[in-house]
């Protein structure tokens, strides 16, 4: 029974023979993509497909849906909640939750309006102070959570209630405060760039992406590490260029690229880079993956937690400022209602896990667009609220089912 079939010995540094490598030929790229599709490692693709399906359906029901004007509105409609989502994502990456973002956006908006309108402080200074208010609030939340040990859910629930009280208190009995149509505040959402600027930004963005990626891959090759081929970089650049240039072209057909949307995109890109490319981002993921492992690695877990809550509230405040800018007013109901739910939902729909350590800043953009598109489309179709609610629910489920199914196949592979 003793039989022996020795395998040919290999030097350790040789690539592992079990690793399935696909060439860099177009066929190889497609094969790799297909494999990832079957393996459930699709990243954001299912949600993007979901978004495209939603758009196609609404467009077929109402031809105004994909009109430049509607798309232009859509970009502005998603900005405020999208920014809050961006902050929520940071907190979700930690494996925690922030219920206060809506109230913080409301109270920051109230601070802004009270300072700028009632106290006559220059609008730019008022904006800065409003955002700072958000930061301070976040530091308080983070400290109570990290240092005292109150669960984040309870801390931010108290924030949700308490800051709403502060907002009512600040606005006092007058309630709504109007802000001028022509100041720095209004400028934030009322500015559109002329076509040339839009094209310039698009070219710069795509160019930068291609350039930096190529450079990075070249450094990897030089260091003897596996790197993406030039063909793959080009393919990726093209995949990025299509929506960017397409978007700019469509927006230029209406008023141009809106400043507010660029601000939102800017935050998303910066947060994505911070999360993926910096020590700080690495530490956030580490704490979210295993706070104890991070602590044992010498990471100051408390500091990371406090800073993340501070960032989340800061972004909520920025979102609040943009909401004031867009509505030319702050009222007692600013930031309440379904704002919180939408901000968290956008993050989750975009693919960020509620359980920590997995997600990306782009979830805010994608999830926000999915939710924005659903609302926008249903308003265009004009239905009874009851029907609208039910259809929203159905579309929401459909938008994530593709993602869920692919994730499920991934889950079946996970080590338990």
């Amino acid at each position: 029974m003793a039989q022996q079939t020795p395998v040919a010995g290999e030097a350790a540094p040789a690539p592992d023979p079990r690793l399935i490598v696909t060439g860099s030929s177009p066929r190889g790229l497609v094969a790799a993509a297909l494999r990832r599709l079957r393996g459930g490692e699709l990243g954001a693709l299912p949600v993007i497909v979901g978004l495209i399906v939603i758009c196609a359906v609404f467009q077929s029901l109402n031809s105004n849906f994909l009109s430049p004007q509607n798309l232009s509105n859509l970009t502005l409609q998603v900005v405020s909640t999208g920014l809050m989502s961006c902050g929520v994502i940071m907190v979700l990456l930690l494996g925690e939750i922030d219920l206060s973002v809506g109230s913080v956006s409301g109270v920051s908006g109230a601070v802004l309006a009270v300072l700028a309108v009632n106290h006559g402080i220059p609008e730019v200074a008022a904006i800065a102070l409003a955002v700072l208010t958000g930061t301070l609030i976040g530091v308080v939340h983070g400290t109570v959570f990290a240092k005292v040990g109150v669960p984040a859910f309870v801390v931010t629930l108290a924030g949700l209630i308490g800051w709403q009280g502060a907002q009512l208190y600040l606005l006092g009995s007058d309630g709504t405060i109007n802000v001028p149509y022509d100041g720095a505040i209004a400028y934030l959402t009322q500015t559109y760039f002329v076509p040339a600027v839009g094209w310039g930004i698009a070219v710069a963005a795509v160019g930068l992406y291609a350039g930096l990626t190529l450079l990075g891959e070249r450094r990897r090759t030089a260091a003897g590490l596996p790197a993406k081929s030039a063909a793959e970089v080009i393919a990726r650049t093209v995949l990025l260029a299509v929506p960017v240039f397409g978007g700019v072209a469509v927006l230029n057909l209406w008023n141009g690229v809106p400043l507010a949307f660029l601000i939102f995109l800017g935050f998303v890109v910066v947060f994505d880079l911070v999360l993926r490319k910096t020590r700080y981002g690495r530490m956030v993921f580490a704490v979210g993956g295993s706070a104890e492992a991070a602590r044992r690695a010498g990471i100051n877990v408390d500091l990371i937690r406090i800073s993340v809550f501070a960032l989340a509230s800061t972004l909520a405040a920025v979102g609040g400022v943009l909401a004031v800018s867009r509505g030319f007013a702050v009222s007692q109901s600013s930031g309440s209602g379904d704002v919180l739910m939408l901000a968290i939902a956008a993050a989750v729909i975009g693919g960020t896990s509620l359980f920590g350590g997995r997600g990306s800043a782009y979830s805010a953009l994608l999830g926000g667009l999915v939710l924005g598109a659903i609302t926008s489309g249903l308003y265009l179709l004009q239905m009874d609220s009851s029907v609208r609610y039910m259809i929203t629910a159905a579309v929401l489920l459909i938008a994530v089912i593709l993602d869920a199914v692919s994730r499920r196949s991934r889950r079946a592979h996970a080590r338990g």
Partner: protein
Amino acid sequence: MSEPVLELSGISKRFGAVQALSDVSLRVHPGEVVALLGDNGAGKSTLVKVIAGVNPADTGTLLWEGRPVTVARPADAQQLGIATIYQDLALCDNLDIVANLFLGGERSTAGVLDEVGMERRARELLDSLSVSIPSLRVPVASLSGGQRQIIAIARSLLGEPKVVMLDEPTAALGVAQTAQVLDLIERLRDQGLGVILISHNMADVRAVADRAMVLRLGRNAGDFRVEDTSYEEIVAAITGAADNPVARRAGRVAVPGSEEA
């Protein structure tokens, strides 16, 4: 020899870009201890999970007492009579020791748990494995590595399995506990069970195994009768080379009791 109780052939399993198992076959007879050997990452645990229904194979067939069966979920494997001790133990950290021992097989009357009966049985079982655990009612999260491993081993003895798979059961165990587990494996063999034992400890393998099956980079790399094979032959099959760090180290140091036979 009798008909194999479990026979696998042509098993392949892929995780993303990694082909973890390619065309692997394995046979276990009743009353036989088969050692599954291989380097780190060779695919041993993956094979165990395939058999246990945790991660079913992509392709390949599984014969149980001669009949082809499909094992799609862990419950299927348990139904057949396969008990598994996983390398990562698979305990519920929030539950106490008794609850973990009986997980999925709780003793109950009309759905109500028989806590007293379970705790008494648990106490007996753990005492027989000579492990000292201060209290049976603490969550397993607070146990030491070896204590956890003993819990996982004890658990597999509660059913009435026909095949027991142990994935590095003694990795975290003390010398006394290891001796007990080796005794236990021999008892299982004597009761006519098929045993699949994964271990990196050649001494343990040589002590209890009848046959050694070597995996290398996800493929079969040899099948030896342990009695007839030298330590060096097996290590060479595992590392895939006669010139390996073990041999080099053995040539350099000469400490009494180091693992070469």
